[in-house]
């Protein structure tokens, strides 16, 4: 391990560092532990809570009770008049939150499905953490849409149910496509989260007592790990991995069409679909970096499962997504800029010099400049806290981007006499509420289900070995399927 310690200490500088070699045993796949030990580590991390945990849990629960439940109840009781949405910005932060949370949800599918299909081995320990983000993010997105509805009890009007009032859904409306796409994605991603969780729930069932035993027993469904069960499960997971990818792309493309189908300055763009998908991946990857860093810092034994190599790989993905996002951002911007449309020009000047210009410049700084300039550096990528900070800033930038797209671009329209800046009111509390609920769900999940897919890690470790070639050992990966 001498080479390894030298490599990570960073003590040697200059020419010699170019020749330092990475010790493969630093990688999770080449550093196996007995399965029983890994199970015990994951169970201990799940069962251990300190007073700090309960303090954070209590604060989040209080915020959810006040800013989510009470504030939403107040909104329902008093109507949308207590919100800041009004002409011309009928879509306010509710829609900003919807787009933002759907964006966050893309991380899970991307990491779990695309990397599974591509057989990217580094995905193994954090697929579940990412998949949970998908499910919890979509819950917040759905809640935000229902908040925006105002009279939420009439949501069933969206469904094609014959009724006396002759109110029928218009399947040719992008808003109706939204309902269908988000419903498909919520159900699909939740099932995709649950399927690979079953073997780990069975593991937890075998190692717990009391109410936890009952809880895991019910959720494990009687899984034992027979040849047939594994075969059905793996077939289903393969189908899900391929099928959920186009669904993922469709969801955020359809969300973009909510805007792009309208002939509005700033919205009417043919690249809005891929631009939104890339934006979603950008924020999702950043959020995964934040979550993984917090998991590693706050949960026991996570430093074994979540290593520098994982943050490094995630950082590389974030860098690639940054380039792609930058490309689409510039493409969208330059075409509108060159278009010469009077109202689009007004909007672009508003973005650059208007009262929300600070948001526009932060977007450029956080989404494009900082990740593109920093993630080149391996040491930054391998530092969990720095990567999490970059991920956090990306999400701040992405939130501003959605804010500019929704209420600000609604403000600058073709009727200048209606221009009025949107000022959120109760929406601010509800936004705090959705963020708190997301964190509360995550915190609860960290103590209720195994966040590390142990069987997938062990499967990966079984397929990896060091093969002696000449004077050295080279990492080798076998194909089990």
């Amino acid at each position, binding site marked *: 391990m001498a080479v390894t310690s030298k490599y990570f200490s960073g003590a040697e500088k200059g020419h010699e560092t170019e020749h330092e070699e990475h010790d493969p045993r630093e990688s999770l796949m080449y550093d196996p532990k*007995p*399965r*029983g030990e890994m*199970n015990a580590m994951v169970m201990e991390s799940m069962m251990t809570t300190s007073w700090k945990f309960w303090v954070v849990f209590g604060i989040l629960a209080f915020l959810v009770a006040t800013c989510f439940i009470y504030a939403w109840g107040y909104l329902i009781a008093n109507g949308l008049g207590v919100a800041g949405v009004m002409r011309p910005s009928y879509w306010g932060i509710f829609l900003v939150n919807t787009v933002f949370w759907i964006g966050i949800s893309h991380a899970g599918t991307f990491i779990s499905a695309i990397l599974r299909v591509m057989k990217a081995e580094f995905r193994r320990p954090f697929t579940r953490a990412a998949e949970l983000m998908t499910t919890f993010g979509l819950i917040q997105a759905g809640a935000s849409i229902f908040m925006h509805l105002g009279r939420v009890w009439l949501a069933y009007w969206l469904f*094609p149910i*014959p009724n006396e009032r*002759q109110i*029928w859904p218009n*399947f*040719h409306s992008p808003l*109706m*496509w939204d309902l*269908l*796409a988000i*419903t*498909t994605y919520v*159900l*699909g991603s939740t*099932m*995709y989260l*649950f*399927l690979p969780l079953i*073997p780990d729930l*069975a*593991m937890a*069932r*075998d*190692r717990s007592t009391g109410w936890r035993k009952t809880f895991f*027993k019910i959720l*494990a*469904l*009687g*899984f*034992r*790990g*027979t*040849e*047939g*069960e*594994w*075969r*059905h*499960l*793996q*077939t*289903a997971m393969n*189908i*899900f991995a391929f*099928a*959920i990818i*186009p*669904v993922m792309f*469709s969801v955020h493309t*359809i969300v973009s069409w909510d805007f792009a189908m309208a002939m509005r300055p700033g919205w009417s763009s043919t690249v809005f679909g891929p631009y939104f998908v890339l934006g979603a991946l950008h924020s999702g990857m950043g959020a995964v970096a934040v979550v993984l860093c917090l998991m590693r810092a706050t949960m026991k034994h996570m430093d074994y499962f979540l290593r520098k190599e994982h943050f490094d790989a995630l950082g590389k993905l974030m860098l690639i997504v940054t380039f792609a996002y930058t490309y689409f951002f510039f493409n969208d911007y330059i075409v509108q800029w060159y278009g010469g449309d009077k109202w689009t020009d007004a909007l672009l000047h508003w973005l650059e010099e208007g009262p929300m210009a600070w948001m526009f410049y932060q977007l450029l700084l956080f989404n494009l400049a900082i990740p593109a300039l920093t993630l080149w550096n391996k040491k930054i990528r391998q530092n969990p806290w720095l990567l999490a900070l970059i991920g956090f800033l990306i999400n701040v930038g992405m939130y501003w981007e959605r804010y500019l797209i929704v209420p600000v671009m609604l403000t600058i329209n073709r009727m200048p006499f209606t221009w009025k800046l949107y000022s959120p009111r109760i929406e601010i509390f509800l936004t705090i509420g959705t963020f708190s609920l997301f964190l509360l769900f995550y915190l609860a999940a960290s103590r209720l289900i195994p966040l590390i897919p142990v*069987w997938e890690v*062990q*499967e990966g470790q*079984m397929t990896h070995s060091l093969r002696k070639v000449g004077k050295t050992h080279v990492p080798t990966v076998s194909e*089990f*399927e």
Partner: protein
Amino acid sequence: MPDTTLLALFEDIDPAADAIEKLHEMGVTDDRINVISGVPVTHKMLGRPHPSTNVSRLALGGAVAGFCFGAFLNYGTPYLYPVLVGGQYITPVPPGMILIFEMTMLFALLSTFLGVFLDSYFPNYRPLEYVPEISDGKIGIFFKYPLEEQEKFVDAMNQLGAESVRPTEAQQL
């Protein structure tokens, strides 16, 4: 004499595969053997027949059903309430593709998920033959054998490196 079930527990795949081969030699057919493991071990590694699954077929069936349902919603229901606007088509094709796509995928995913439940008989809370060591990475081979030959089978499994060989019966998981 009635048949009974014996569990042989192995640490690794290699001795487990050898044990299955030995069981075949001793006249135990594949339908009387069940292998349970904490990670997916392929049938080829163990020299076992390929386990069949209906999940793919169910997924395909679900996709077809979803396609039909999407087509019905898009090209059928609008005729129940024909709203003519500006001479536009009641059932245009391009926007209909979106609805059909989403319904196809939704039904395919739902039927895949249900397929796992149907094929695996989930949920199953009845007593089953199982030992918790399986989820610690051990490989368990359950096989039925004539009771009078117990000693012969136990010796064979022990010689092939079984960690433990014991009669087993169904228990609450």
